[in-house]
């Protein structure tokens, strides 16, 4: 049994970061920084319950999107049979263990088949299952360097190309990378850091009442997981529904030029590297707007949902403010090894400079 996502006390930023990625995978993942015992792993594992279904090619180990880029296998099938069978699968959280070897990560020559039959066949690795799913790396900063290289390579290309050991195989590898790390145990390479769309810092909860609540729920869950899960089911269903509604709304949100200008003026004042910050901030703000307005529907009459007017789904300054920390804190050009606190002050200064417009 997995502890229900909605029963996690506090850590709102982390939960928001995960939810935004479920609604809009193109945001590009989440890095969770913080000490041990701050519900990092619990939250990521619990996320699995809330994930929507995706349409895939039936039986494809790479979860190919029948209407998207295909793996070598599906391409051959399509050429031969001119059609691909479809099936619906729930999205998954695939874990990448720290000790992973490169052949397990990217796939390799199927040794057994080669020896028994004398034929070459590709044996899929972890990246295969991760396509269009969440790829979760606990303690991502402890991952071996050459594994990180390979991970970066596929993350950048959205494709895993294997050219080794006599096999040549290509399959799409668009995964949502979720990592956790304790910064005191070592740094993360800047390039890998930049690959995470969003980043949150989690700390221990200081509020006494909240800490008591954590204990209470933990005890209740351990005592009778089934009962506890059943109790939280309505909450879980509500969130799933809201995520589904937000996904639909997202397609109707188009940021105005004023919003884009505001985003650029924020990132420009922080002197960030490259354009990824602009793009991620825009996508995160759009997604938050979708999620926020999907929440409003819920409180009203659910029967009205569906073809509602989407007028409410404009991006507000608050949306941008709320996700700016998530999208930018890890991209701030820190003067070598400057503390995080300094960053946050600069970020606040940039956000308080005000927006050119005032949408409520």
């Amino acid at each position: 049994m997995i502890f229900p996502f909605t029963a996690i006390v506090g850590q709102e930023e982390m939960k928001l970061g995960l939810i935004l990625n479920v609604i809009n995978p193109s945001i590009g993942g989440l890095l969770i920084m913080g000490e041990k015992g701050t519900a990092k792993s619990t939250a990521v594992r619990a996320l699995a319950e809330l994930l929507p279904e995706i349409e895939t090619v039936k039986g494809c180990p790479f979860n190919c999107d029948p209407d998207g880029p295909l793996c070598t296998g599906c391409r051959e099938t399509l050429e031969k049979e001119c059609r691909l069978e479809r099936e619906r699968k729930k999205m998954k959280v695939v874990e990448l263990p720290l000790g992973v070897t490169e052949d397990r990560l990217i796939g390799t020559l199927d040794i057994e088949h080669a020896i028994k039959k004398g034929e070459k066949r590709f044996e899929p690795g972890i990246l295969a299952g991760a396509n269009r799913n969440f790829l979760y790396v606990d303690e991502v900063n402890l991952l071996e360097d050459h594994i990180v290289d390979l991970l970066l390579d596929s993350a950048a290309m959205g494709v895993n190309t294997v050219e080794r050991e006599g096999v040549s195989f290509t399959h799409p590898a668009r995964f949502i990378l979720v990592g956790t790390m304790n910064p005191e145990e070592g740094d993360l390479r800047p390039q890998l850091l930049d690959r995470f769309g969003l980043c949150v810092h989690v700390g221990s909860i200081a509020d006494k009442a909240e800490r008591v609540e954590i204990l209470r729920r933990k005890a209740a869950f351990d005592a009778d997981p089934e009962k506890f899960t059943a109790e939280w089911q309505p909450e879980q269903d509500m969130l799933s529904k809201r995520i589904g509604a937000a996904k639909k709304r997202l397609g109707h949100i188009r940021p105005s030029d004023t919003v884009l200008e505001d985003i650029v003026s924020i990132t420009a004042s922080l002197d960030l590297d490259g354009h990824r910050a602009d793009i991620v901030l825009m996508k995160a703000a759009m997604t938050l707007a979708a999620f926020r307005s999907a929440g409003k529907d819920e409180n009203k009459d659910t029967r009205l949902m569906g073809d509602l007017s989407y007028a409410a789904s404009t991006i507000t300054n608050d949306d941008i403010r709320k996700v700016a920390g998530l999208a930018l804190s890890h991209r701030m050009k820190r003067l070598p090894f400057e503390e995080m606190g300094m960053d946050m002050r600069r970020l606040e200064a940039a956000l308080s400079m005000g927006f050119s417009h005032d949408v409520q």
Partner: protein
Amino acid sequence: MTFSDFVGHEDAKLALVLNAIDPGCGGVLFTGERGGGKSTLSRLFKKILPEDTPFIELPLNVTEDALLGGIDIEETIKAGRRVFQPGILSRADHGVVYVDDINLLSLEMLSLVLEVSGLGENIIEREGIAFRHTSRFILVATMNEEEGVLSPHLLDRFGMMVLCEGLEDVRQRIEIMKTAAPEVFGPPSFGQGDHELSERIRSCRLFLKDVTIPVETMGYIVQMCIEANLAGSRGDICLMYASRAHAAYRGSMEVTRDDVDAVAPLVLAHRKRASQQQQQQGRQRQEQQQSDRQAGRDGRREPQEQTGSEGHEGQGQQHGAQPGDERPAPDEFRSDRDGGEPSSNEENGQQREAGGKEEVFDIGASFRTKRMMFRKDRINRLESGRRTKTGSRDKSGRYIKGIQRKRDDIAIDATLRAAAPYQKARGRTGMVLIHDDDLRFKQREKKMGHLVVFVVDGSGSMGARRRMVETKGAVQSLLMDCYQKRDRVSMIVFRRDRAEVVLPPTSSVELASKRLKEIPVGGKTPLTAGLMETYRLIKRVTARSPETRVIGVLITDGRANQGLSDAPIDQEIEKMTRLLSGLRSADYIVVDTEDQAGFFRTGLARKIASRLDADYHTIDGLKSGCLFEMVRMKKTEGIGI
């Protein structure tokens, strides 16, 4: 998205177009910060090439046989004779090979790619196969310098290099956001521009051979290369072909000076070497900056990008990111602790020494240091990191090729290739029959890090003349280097009556930086205690993992005045240095913090350096253009097998 819709970076686009017109231009390397659009642009390149042009993305996981070609296991078993399976490079003939993050590619694969690219031919002599095929391709690659740089001779193999930084213009940035999310904003155009460009390239290719290069223009090219102080003539040749392609692109049948001027920044930027005179000037400029800073704003932490002036002069101007360009640090980041005049600081320093008062100094400006590097050594190690390439002994590291030497890490593909030709002869019916001498083992490669131990003098004399600020700046710079190389670091501070390990070996350079900031200064100089502690630390570390290489960085003015015993300090130092230099796994660097212009120079630190057989540097000497290796492998003889 289309090539023509790509916003900005006109020079990068020009470089690709010129290579498309004439592959003789020698390929392009895009460098620059992450998220600047290097990879995006590179992938769009295929849209302006003729339809059937191969475009091969070279994955970092590539092994030697997959790159160059080798025995086809399946076919060979069936046929009972060797059947050749072509590698990636055979597919790339007359096309493009694209390598994302080329600086992360295994060094061995990288040199193979560059070799074939240079020859235009792939020659295979392995596993009983002799085979050769033409392999002419345009090499396009990206590199993020934060993750380490290619050596100058590898850089030279690229015809052109272009710096791709993020754009600053608000309009352009908004355009980029829109093109990056076509699902929201719709496609910006329908590829019309690409079609036209592709047609233009096709027609340029047709008359390229007829474009003439007047002798006068050739003279201009050569003159330009001489002025840039290029090594060899690869630069001259690239500049010539690039200029010709540019003329063709303009529709001109003759290459003019303007063509040369237009392409020179692309070709010369990464090849330019500072002549001796320029280096001299550079040093003077640095010193000037240094004294400027001392006069005014000592505590600022703005990193200086002095090495930038080496490589990117051409682009620097276009992007407004002038090398050595110093933005004044905003007031709020400036430390207000040490705004005082140098003279008053000196006074403070003297007081401190006398009264044993303590003070914590800010970290001085950091800079890029010279490279610390060891030669690739032949021992297989278990450590991982990025400073030195090494064969790896456990099963981690990148598998690069199969070899015949015995180990426990079987390379099944290579083994099968070795066994394949004999299957018929051995009478295979079901399973593949593998004999002992078919067995091949994996050769892996990974980069090895080091433990860098900083041994910092925290005595009162370091407070004088703001020495500690500079020292911290120097250590900070070395830390940045350690970070890039994935070294572990440790820090020992000696002051008052003892030495203390303020930071046990850790891979968190961030933590080291924090400790660095906290180092207090004051009291006497127990140098020998510092050396003793260093010795103990190295002993401890190497006892646990004997393969660790240690670099001890001793930062002091050498004026020891507090001993461990009643013996004369000089004797103690001699004893300690002898112990330290007897450690086979360690090398040393001594950074002398004594004021080199000062009246009372003692040269004590230099003496210690020679006793330790260490590289000796003054703080100013560390601030180099990263041209020379700061540490050379000294004790290979003792360690190599």
